[in-house]
């Protein structure tokens, strides 16, 4: 990105003043290096979002931002329904409520040495991953609607997990305002065999070790210590979410003209929050969130079964579950005034500051855990939300490393087998059905996740708590 287009502020914050049809400025959180390497498309997309009706304060891009669909991936924008604000299917993305859940295991590295391969095999066997895999839960009609209304709460009621799990999930495991009837039969049919499946692409289940502690106060509150083994699950709402995204993108693209909204990019298709279409999408999208929460809950159950068969003394507890593709109705203070806003986070994690009542009571003093997924061979991080972040970015932070290279390039550069062997030499076990899928997800195809979290930390939108390194990865 051409730095002359931006004004640098303190703490990794760059601003683009409103020009043309921009209603508000655009703000990018990044180090000089990250922003220099950022695609020019991020500039186009973050400024395009600033043109949407009812946008409040600014259009934001996180340090891991890259070229997305309408919104950049790593984009955050809040809209006021009382000022003609809009909701955008592209601003949430196709994988509604894709997110990360991290589980404590009650084990340390020494407890799993010698059993790592067995554990990887059992996890790979039990957890459906990749295209063509199907789950063992098959839902039809009323059961599907109950899942869409109940989310992880429904999953627990069906015997997948325990009620304590729910305390550590956003919205306590059940997104209110979901309207199963707003979800098409096509979307439901696509989900019929996909409950409890990881999916493919960058989705994974990873056994990780706490490699470094940066904030011992917050890590104690989160119950994390060095060399502890945790499990992180990265996946979303599967076919149901993809189909909702597809259908509403078209509906909104066709209706935008009727609403008199002039769009710089078709993919930004949106509808006023207060319009029938806006409301219908919100109902369907919230049902999609519940699908993702139920999905991660079922996978948690399968993970517990796998651990029980290899390491019976493991005790898997949910640390936290946070989504990074959502639009949520939230209260925010803007220029001293409390306002009800609809915050889109596309490839961005909610990151509430300490004391926020939406954070589980046991974790509240430290802020909301922000779970940052890295790539297979590098690292992941757990950060925490900050008070500053509430005013800087509507309580939002980065979500991962972000791709540095297209799949096309990665597939030309690496062979999956070679990637797996290289990682094995570093002591990292990979299980995947597809060698090409592994090549496309090679660690070097991603940005340096450490640079991303350091920029988020320096910007003050989240604070580093611990670093996690991979032990075994089940690739979707």
């Amino acid at each position, binding site marked *: 990105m051409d730095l002359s287009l931006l004004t640098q502020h303190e703490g990794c914050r760059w601003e683009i003043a409103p020009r043309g049809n921009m209603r508000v400025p655009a703000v990018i959180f990044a180090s000089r290096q990250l922003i220099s390497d950022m695609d020019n498309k991020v500039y186009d997309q973050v400024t395009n979002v600033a043109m949407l009706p009812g946008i409040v304060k600014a259009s934001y891009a996180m340090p891991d931002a890259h070229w997305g669909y309408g919104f950049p991936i790593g984009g955050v924008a809040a809209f006021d329904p009382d000022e003609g604000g809009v909701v955008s299917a592209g601003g949430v993305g196709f994988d509604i409520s894709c997110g990360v859940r991290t589980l404590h295991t009650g084990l340390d590295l020494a407890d799993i040495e010698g059993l790592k391969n067995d554990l990887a095999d059992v996890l790979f066997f039990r957890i459906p991953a990749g295209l063509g895999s199907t789950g063992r839960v098959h839902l039809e009609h009323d059961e599907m609607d109950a899942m869409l209304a109940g989310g992880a709460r429904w999953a627990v009621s069906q015997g997948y997990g325990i009620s304590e799990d729910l305390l550590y999930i956003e919205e306590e495991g059940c997104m209110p305002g979901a309207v199963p009837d707003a979800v098409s039969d096509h979307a439901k049919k696509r989900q019929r065999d996909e409950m409890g499946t990881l999916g493919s692409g960058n989705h994974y289940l990873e056994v990780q070790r706490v490699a470094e502690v940066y904030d011992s106060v917050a890590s104690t509150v989160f119950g994390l210590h060095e060399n502890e083994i945790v499990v992180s699950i990265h996946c979303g709402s599967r076919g149901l979410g993809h189909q909702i995204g597809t259908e509403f*993108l078209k509906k909104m693209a066709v209706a935008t003209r009727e609403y008199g909204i002039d769009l710089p990019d078709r993919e930004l298709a949106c509808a006023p929050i207060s319009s029938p279409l806006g409301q219908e999408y919100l109902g369907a999208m919230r049902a999609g969130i519940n699908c993702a929460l139920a999905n991660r809950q079922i996978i948690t159950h399968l993970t517990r079964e796998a651990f029980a068969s290899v390491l019976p003394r493991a005790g898997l507890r949910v640390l936290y579950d946070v989504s990074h593709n959502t639009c949520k109705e939230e209260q925010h203070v803007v220029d001293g005034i409390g306002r009800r806003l609809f915050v889109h986070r596309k490839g961005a994690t909610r990151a509430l500051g300490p004391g926020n009542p939406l954070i589980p009571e046991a974790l509240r003093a430290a802020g909301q855990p922000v779970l940052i997924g890295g790539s297979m061979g590098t690292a992941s991080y757990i950060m925490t939300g900050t008070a500053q972040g509430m005013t800087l970015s509507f309580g939002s932070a980065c979500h991962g490393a972000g791709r540095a290279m297209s799949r096309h390039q990665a597939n030309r550069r690496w062979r999956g087998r070679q990637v797996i062997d290289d990682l094995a030499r570093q002591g990292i076990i990979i299980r995947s059905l597809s060698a090409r899928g592994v090549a496309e997800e090679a660690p070097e195809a991603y940005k340096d996740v450490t640079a991303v979290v350091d920029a988020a930390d320096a910007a003050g939108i989240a604070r580093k708590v611990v670093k996690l390194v991979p032990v075994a990865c089940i690739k979707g």
Partner: protein
Amino acid sequence: MEQGHTEARWEHFPHGADIGIRGIGRSKNEAFEQAALAMTQVITNAKQVAVREAVAIACQAPDDEILLVDWLNALVYEMATRHMLFSRFNVHVDDHRLDGTAFGEHIDRQRHQPAVEVKAATYTGLSVGLNPDGLWVAQCVVDV
């Protein structure tokens, strides 16, 4: 015009996080067929996908570009719900209406080694048009 450049073909083009698919043909129909083949190639080697079953697909849209996205998304839906992959396509486009047939077989995870699942065809990098060289091009980015 050189031989080879006039034949229907498919290509992939890079996108930051995902992948672009492009179909090129002597008619709009061929370009749509090749775009579908390019999408299968994102998932697996289409040569490994046998033609055993036919699935009829119809869609309608306000313009050719949305029609291309609808066609590809209809294929995504059929792949997901029938657990199939497709390797041959027959398309007839007339006045923003498409009638097509996709030929393929049930997915075999060992034999097809699917690399990724396509979540959706998108409006990014989307265009359908006649090039100055007389060939039709139909393309968009798919989210994987």
